[in-house]
């Protein structure tokens, strides 16, 4: 019997009991649709996290003091300036940040717990903050410690609900600042609201509020996104020198993206201090007085967790696909029993076991393939909508994967009923009702 004939008789079998075939396909449809859609949801949420992290700036590195100065120096404005002047090959900029939290008021109203960020004008090129109206304070104003400020968009409307905040005076803990610029609205990526902050020259912020000691953090920008890791290494080496950290404390274990590995290696060659360092080399990264994180390290962490999330969703969906497959077996068993007589007739006129097996396998494959195709259509349709705040993004390979698995399940689960049909003895099959 030719392939076309087998397919035709299988199609005839599928259409013989339409309701039953449709219900069976529905099981496969749900399974395939769930696999594709849930993988798309996992993928979509991964992409959302990635884009949030990328919006931090993938070239940006953050150097933060750990707070425990083990005899070494603190990261001060002077250290920041030396680091910026060190001429590191992969580092474009180093920007100091001194942050505190204070009450800010206009003539009419006041806001408490507003973060005050003292920094240099270069901050606006390194961070994702952009100025919507007005301008940054200048380097001259920074040097002169002028009382000027750039404020977030939310803060601007809260303090000056009736008109533009630009050129107005705000009071920060008794000092009056002139608003020279207003930030564009940003999406929040952390615990603080970037739309409700005051950015002022670091010299002024240190003199008025934080003092001249340790900075909150340094931001650095790598020249290229590919050079982030190299920049990390360079910064680590330079900081170790500036802060007088022994290279022996810089071991190599870190998942948070500290500069230890590269710093230790290069530092060894350069300073020659590492003889005997190997003995105490197991010191953990936390013994460094600072840590360097970059968006790329955050990204890889986020990607890893997103992948396991997607796999988990797919596993749940795969179970429903399995249930659909068992439904196919069930229906095929009923079909074979119902059509015992037909099998007997076909055998009497010369159907071999192979021909009968092929017919019922093809029937199972058609059921699952049609169900699978419908599942793909439904999944693609549903992925157009946002699900629980996440826009699903269909993973290309999930479609052929789910379809292939569904047909494989159909054939796998069809083998038993089809084999039963093929093994029937013609006389017994003919004798049935």
């Amino acid at each position, binding site marked *: 019997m030719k392939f076309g004939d087998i397919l035709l008789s299988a199609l005839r079998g599928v259409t013989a009991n339409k309701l039953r075939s449709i219900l069976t396909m529905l099981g496969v449809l749900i399974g395939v649709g769930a696999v594709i859609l849930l993988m798309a949801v996992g993928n979509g949420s991964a992409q959302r996290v990635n884009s949030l992290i990328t919006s931090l700036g993938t070239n940006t590195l953050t150097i933060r003091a750990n707070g425990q100065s083990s005899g070494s120096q603190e990261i001060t404005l002077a250290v920041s300036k030396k680091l910026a002047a060190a001429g590191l090959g992969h580092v474009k900029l180093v920007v100091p940040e001194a942050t505190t939290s204070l009450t800010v008021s206009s003539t009419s109203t006041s806001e408490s717990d507003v973060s005050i960020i003292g920094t240099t004008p270069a901050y606006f090129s390194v961070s994702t903050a952009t100025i919507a109206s007005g301008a940054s304070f200048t380097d001259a104003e920074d040097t002169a410690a002028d009382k000027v400020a750039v404020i977030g968009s939310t803060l601007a409307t809260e303090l000056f609900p009736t008109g533009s905040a630009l050129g107005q005076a705000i009071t920060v803990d008794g000092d009056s600042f002139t608003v020279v610029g207003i930030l564009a609205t940003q999406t929040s990526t952390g615990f603080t609201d970037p739309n409700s902050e005051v950015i002022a020259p670091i010299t002024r912020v240190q003199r008025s509020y934080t003092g001249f000691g340790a900075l909150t953090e340094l931001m650095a920008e790598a020249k290229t996104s590919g050079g982030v890791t190299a920049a990390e290494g360079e910064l680590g080496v330079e900081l170790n020198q500036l802060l007088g950290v022994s290279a022996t404390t810089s071991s190599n274990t870190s998942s948070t993206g500290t500069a230890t590995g590269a710093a230790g290696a290069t530092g060894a060659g350069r300073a020659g201090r590492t003889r005997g360092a190997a003995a105490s080399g197991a010191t953990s990264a936390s013994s460094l007085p600072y840590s360097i994180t970059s968006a790329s390290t955050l990204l890889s962490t986020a990607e890893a967790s997103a992948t396991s999330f997607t796999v988990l969703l797919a596993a749940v969906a795969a179970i429903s696909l399995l249930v659909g497959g068992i439904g196919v077996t069930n229906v095929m068993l009923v079909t074979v029993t119902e059509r015992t007589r037909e099998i007997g007739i*076909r055998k009497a*006129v*010369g159907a*071999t076991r192979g021909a009968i097996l092929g017919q019922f396998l093809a029937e199972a494959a058609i059921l699952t393939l049609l169900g699978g195709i419908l599942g793909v259509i439904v999944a693609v349709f549903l992925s157009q909508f946002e699900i629980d705040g996440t826009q699903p993004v269909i993973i290309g390979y999930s479609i052929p994967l789910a379809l292939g698995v569904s047909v494989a399940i159909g054939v796998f689960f069809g083998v038993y009923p089809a084999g039963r049909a093929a093994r029937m*003895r*013609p006389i017994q099959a003919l004798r049935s009702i």
Partner: protein
Amino acid sequence: MATSQAVTETGVLELRGIHQLYGTGDAQVHALRGIDLTVKAGDYLAIMGPSGSGKSTLMNLLGCLDVASSGTYVLAGSDVSEMDERQLAIVRNREIGFIFQSFNLVPRMTALQNAELPLAYGGVRYAERKRRAMEALEMVGLSHRADHRPQQLSGGQQQRVAIARALVTGPTLILADEPTGNLDSESTHEILAIFDQLAAQGRTIVIITHEDAVGDRAHRVVTISDGLITGDHLHADKNLEPVR
């Protein structure tokens, strides 16, 4: 026109010492107890006997639907008793045309599709298949019902489709099991007329029946009782002319 003279001549179908046993121990049934039978090309043979005589068992053996416990069965020159399942399927397809009491057409398939089913399993090409199936339907006078499904046809018409299906491969043996058992007298007459016509064309026909009316039309009647052949008569003087 073949008429039987000597049963010992080599035929298209030869049974030698056929025994058939079913079950084991106390439940064992000895359905056939040593059958020797030769059917020659062009024979029109009726096998008659009461129910339980073993004629259905014999029919299953002749039709290669079952294999004998012992003895040899040679059909068209090849020993069927030695064949495996796959070879038996091929023999059923090429050498035997079945006609059953309950018609046994596949539902949901048209008369034409039913008639061409053996050709489909025989691997005949599509166009060729249609042509031959249509010819067979014409032979039984049903070409105008080719597109009808079994449930749209009367019993007599269904049996004629079944005959067309049996003829379509041009088999060595046409094997009918109580072909008129489910039919009224008018349809019975129609079907028997077709058998007479086929016999006149020189086809080899074996009909299993318990109806004398059917047995009388055959050229040779073999009676079977308790698994043994008890009589073998020629009706050479009767039905030589096809009955209209």
